[in-house]
């Protein structure tokens, strides 16, 4: 993925914004990214919009609000990885020589509470077989049973990310929490408690990609999907087989992205990863090659994943602090990493960061990993 540069980023904060539409949030993020790149909407040759709940032609509504119709506009849905999928397509269109300059953005305005998905048949919903937090909890149960990690480790992830979120003005939750508070929060599906689960919410993020010039480089990016066989895969099948020999989509995407970048896990200075729930973050660490299964305990004990530690994870506060607007969350991670790699991350700056990794995974077992280089 050589020669793809990010020359402008923009973000609409993640949170709850009443009557404000997803289109309006998208307009704010896109205008900020275009302004940073020093270009107008008429200067982009294509636009890629990630959204899961935005409806028909969601990206077109944003660009038509900016009088930006004319170039091709692609609306991209890949569950929680929608923004990553849009970025992958945008980057590929430049790497292939098709375009010199494109816009990639993500928008979402989610209802409160457990996410409803047209993915499931009505009878599955009626039978009570579709609650996302329960599937997160089952995956967490397995992680604890197979690695010796404990509920205390899950709580430590929340403490870390909520602590980071205090320094992020674009986050939804900016209050630090203690391990005791996390473990005393309401039990949703054991072992997961309220503070261990992210909130679906609203927001937008945008980046301008160009084939030349200065800027953070997209050194590698890969989307991998569907893992046949695992009953705990994000594609939520009703049955599965022994998945011990199967490579998870996150690992497949990471291996692709590392290979494209000519880098490995040891080269990564800062990570933004999917923390839909606290266990998902710990699983991501091992699936991304940042540690061995069970090695998470040592990283937590030594504070390595804190800002100021050896390799901070989710310095933005993660989804646990920001909330998760599905189409925008992956690009929100990229905006954060670009700011980190430019040295513009303020009180949450990771000193000397040169290589960043962004990771999302969600419905359809869509996993996207992006490697960015200063």
């Amino acid at each position: 993925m050589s020669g793809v540069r990010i020359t402008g980023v923009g973000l609409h904060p993640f949170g709850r914004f009443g009557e404000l539409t997803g289109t309006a949030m998208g307009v704010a993020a896109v205008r900020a990214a275009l302004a940073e790149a020093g270009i107008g909407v008429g200067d982009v040759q294509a636009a890629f919009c990630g959204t899961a709940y935005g409806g028909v032609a969601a990206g077109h509504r944003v660009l038509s609000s900016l009088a930006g119709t004319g170039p091709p506009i692609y609306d991209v849905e890949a569950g929680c990885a929608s923004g990553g999928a849009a970025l992958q397509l945008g980057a590929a269109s430049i790497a292939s020589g098709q375009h010199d300059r494109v816009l990639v953005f993500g928008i979402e305005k989610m209802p409160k509470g457990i996410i409803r998905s047209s993915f499931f048949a009505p009878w599955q919903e009626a039978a009570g077989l579709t609650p996302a937090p329960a599937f997160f909890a089952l995956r967490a149960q397995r992680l604890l049973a197979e690695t010796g990690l404990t509920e205390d480790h899950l709580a430590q992830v929340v403490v870390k990310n909520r602590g980071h979120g205090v320094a992020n003005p674009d986050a939804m939750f900016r209050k630090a929490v203690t391990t005791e508070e996390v473990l005393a929060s309401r039990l949703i599906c054991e072992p997961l408690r309220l503070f261990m689960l992210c909130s679906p919410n609203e927001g937008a993020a945008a980046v301008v990609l160009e084939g030349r010039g200065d800027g953070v480089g997209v050194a590698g990016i890969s989307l991998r999907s569907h893992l046949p066989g695992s009953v705990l895969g994000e594609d939520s099948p009703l049955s599965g087989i022994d998945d011990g020999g199967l490579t998870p989509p996150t690992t497949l995407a990471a291996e692709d992205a590392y290979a494209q970048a000519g880098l490995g896990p040891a080269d990564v200075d800062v990570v933004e990863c999917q923390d839909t729930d606290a266990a998902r973050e710990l699983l991501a660490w091992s699936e991304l090659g940042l540690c061995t299964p069970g090695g998470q305990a040592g990283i937590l004990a030594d504070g390595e994943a804190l800002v100021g530690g050896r390799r901070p994870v989710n310095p933005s506060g993660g989804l646990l602090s920001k909330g998760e607007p599905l189409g925008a969350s992956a690009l929100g991670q990229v905006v954060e990493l670009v700011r980190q790699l430019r040295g513009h991350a303020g009180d949450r700056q990771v000193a000397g960061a040169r290589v960043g990794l962004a990771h999302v995974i969600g419905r359809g077992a869509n996993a996207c990993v992006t490697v960015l280089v200063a």
Partner: protein
Amino acid sequence: MCHSPHVAPRPIDPAVLRIDDDGITLLGGWSPSSGLRHFPPSPVCPFTGADDIEPVDLPRTGTVWLHTTVTVAPPGYSGAVPYGLGIVELDGDPGLRVVTRLRGEGVARGVAVALSGEEVPGPDGEPSVTWTFHP
């Protein structure tokens, strides 16, 4: 099985389970070429893509692999909460892990469980029967 004596029990989806004089049966598929069972039945083996699928009645017994409790009703569900949800490894070879409701005392990892029916409002709000496992 708990259903009104005046109303014939109606499976929540007739393609997924059968109710007859033997009680409730989960309907699966078996692919001889892939050597694997799956649930619910599909025209193609979801694990290998093979299409030599034969219908198979799945075992009524198994072992709890993972379990949790649902405390908040998910969208589209109008039955009672809380309820148990988990994954049961069905008896027999080759192995098959099935997502299921769980009920009764003593549900824990590794505990032997058996299949039964449980009444829930169907998608149309009328009573229907889905499956559950219990110790």
